[in-house]
């Protein structure tokens, strides 16, 4: 269900601005496509002159048309800048929709917590759950009122079960209170910036809730600090690599010839994690693979999404050279 690696030719049918920073792109595929609730597509983009791919949530899908919403993030790695350069008629390569967030039906109540652009995967989840007759509520947090994408549709869908929190007006979601109001068998669906995600996850587990009833989607694109340039040192390889703000550590390492394995590229699978020898500055862990405690210990870092807020980091690459099999203490070398 999570493999969808066939690139299809899509055309931008229409472009629409939802907020000053969120733009909708209606894409036409060469064939009918189906999107389960919470689905995303991968799109081939040019980021900083390099071909790359990005995932965007599907907000609507009908026949051969799928609509995605893209937030323009000036400090990002360049994907959104590329998407925003596309006008009606532009052609691009995209995968068919796939969902890792399709709801499990059958709970008495569902709480959806959305932060900012995190509304995009939860919109179709809300639509599906409401359509199934479930009791679905949403807490939708944004910084300013101007950022409230899809407000009208959500109001129509959820009525007074939608609550909006505008941080510029000092409105905050009472996360422990929201969790306490849920029964053990209810479910929570979550998508938003790293700080919100981590706060909800921390309170969820502190309340002794089952991990299987907390569903969330991470884009790995936000952290506690804005992305900045930093330095990676690999003494074993004698390398010192500059990672620009718009590039991931994983890509910078790979570009410099350091052999790496990775899979999800959004901080879930842990394959790209490396040992940290030292840091000079603050690490901005943006993955969900490690626990908060592991982040605090700082022994490892997921290179696909996490980075240094500033300064430098010294790591061990996966490369250790071929072992001398006559020597038994291989791990120490």
């Amino acid at each position, binding site marked *: 269900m999570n493999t969808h690696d066939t690139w299809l030719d899509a055309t931008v049918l229409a472009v629409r601005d939802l907020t000053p920073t969120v733009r909708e792109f209606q894409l036409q595929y060469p064939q*009918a496509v189906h999107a389960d609730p919470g689905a995303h597509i991968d799109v081939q983009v040019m980021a900083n002159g390099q071909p790359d791919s990005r995932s965007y949530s599907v907000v609507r899908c*009908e026949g051969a048309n799928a609509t995605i919403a893209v937030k323009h993030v000036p400090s990002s790695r360049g994907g959104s800048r590329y998407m925003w350069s596309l006008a009606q008629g532009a052609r691009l390569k995209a995968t068919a929709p796939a969902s890792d967030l399709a709801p499990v*039906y059958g709970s008495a109540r569902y709480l959806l917590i959305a932060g900012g652009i995190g509304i995009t995967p939860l919109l179709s989840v809300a639509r599906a759950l409401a359509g*199934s*007759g479930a009791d679905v509520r949403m807490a939708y947090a944004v910084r300013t009122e101007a950022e409230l994408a899809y407000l009208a549709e959500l109001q129509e869908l959820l009525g007074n079960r939608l609550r909006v929190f505008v941080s510029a007006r000092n409105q905050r979601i009472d996360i422990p209170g929201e969790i306490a109001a849920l029964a053990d068998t209810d479910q929570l669906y979550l998508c938003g910036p790293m700080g919100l995600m981590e706060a909800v996850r921390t309170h969820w587990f502190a309340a002794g809730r089952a991990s299987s009833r907390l569903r969330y989607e991470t884009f790995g694109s936000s952290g506690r600090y804005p992305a900045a340039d930093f330095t990676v040192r690999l003494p074993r390889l004698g390398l010192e690599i500059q990672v620009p703000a718009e590039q991931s550590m994983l890509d910078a390492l790979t570009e410099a010839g350091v052999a790496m394995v990775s899979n999800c590229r959004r901080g879930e699978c842990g394959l790209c994690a490396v040992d940290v020898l030292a840091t000079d500055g603050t690490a901005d862990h943006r993955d969900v693979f490690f626990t908060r405690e592991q982040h605090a210990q700082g022994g490892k870092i997921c290179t696909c999404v996490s980075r240094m807020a500033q300064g430098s980091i010294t790591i061990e690459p996966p490369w250790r050279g071929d072992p001398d099999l006559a020597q038994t203490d291989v791990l120490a070398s």
Partner: protein
Amino acid sequence: MTSTPRPTFPLNAWYVAAWDAEVGRTLLARSICGQQMVLYRKQDGQAVALADACWHRLVPLSLGTLVGDGVRCGYHGMHFNADGRCTHMPSQETINPSACVRSFPVVERHRFVWVWPGDPALADPAKVPSLPWMDDADWAGDGSMVEVKADYRLILDNLMDLTHETYVHGSSIGNEALAEAPFDAVHGETTATVRRWVLGEEAPAFWGAQLGKPGPVDRWQIIHFKAPATILLDVGVAPAGSGAPQGDRSQGVGMWVIHIPTPSTEKTSYYFWCHLRNYRVREQRITREVLQAARGILLEDETIIEAQQRAMDANPGREFYNLNIDAGSLWARRLIDGMVDKELSGAQQPAVVPREAVGA
């Protein structure tokens, strides 16, 4: 871009995956409508159907172990709960939020475990076909399941025209009178019905024995199809002239014969069947005898239908010719086609589902 062949079955429907007694505290692998599923019961007895492929490396979960209410993969120990959510991953402290296997809606009703292979949001338990005789003490009997190497629609064709009884089952339930009796074929939004009465003729061997009275009989054969894959046969005999055609069946013997061929793949089926009678209901011996007789009759059908499937495969592109007697099967296929069309056009709207009724 490859053109997808037209599906032979709709996915948004309830299908029988197993008899109630087949599902227990073990892992049962079934392929329903081309989807590999693993079925089991939770500790409270509730039946569960999960996709039978581990999220991690696709190894069938049915080769793993039932642990509590969930399944542990037999390869690397990934654990999935009854909702299909991963609850344990080896060698790490967190769980990948994407890790899950599909959980199929399940309803247990009328002694069958029904699954919904399509969009779970549309899985309305009210759409499970009604089979009240399965739960009624006035009706006794039992059934079984046989795997048939043929398109489930060939089994439906077979049942929608019982003329074949004369030729396939001549020694038990068929005779010449049946093949020559008039019938009519009618339909509704989700059903097709073929009605046939044979009046004042000698009973075939099986029915004569069940009735236990000499002399000519009035025989009824009413075939109800409920799309996409349920057939209910209302069949029986009564002494000729005792009023059965007018609605008084009290002098006769009757059966509801349930036939549910669930598509496993495009060319294989699980054929569930059951014979329920309203006479001598407390005699277990009759249950056994009818079951044995039915097995023999079903084997005759299976032989013909599998041979037909092989002949179709050997003659690709050859279309069927249809006769007057095929009206029932044509109505059944039209209803199935309508459901498939609706799915292909994406016109299906979610039903409002009572929450507590859907397996969770």
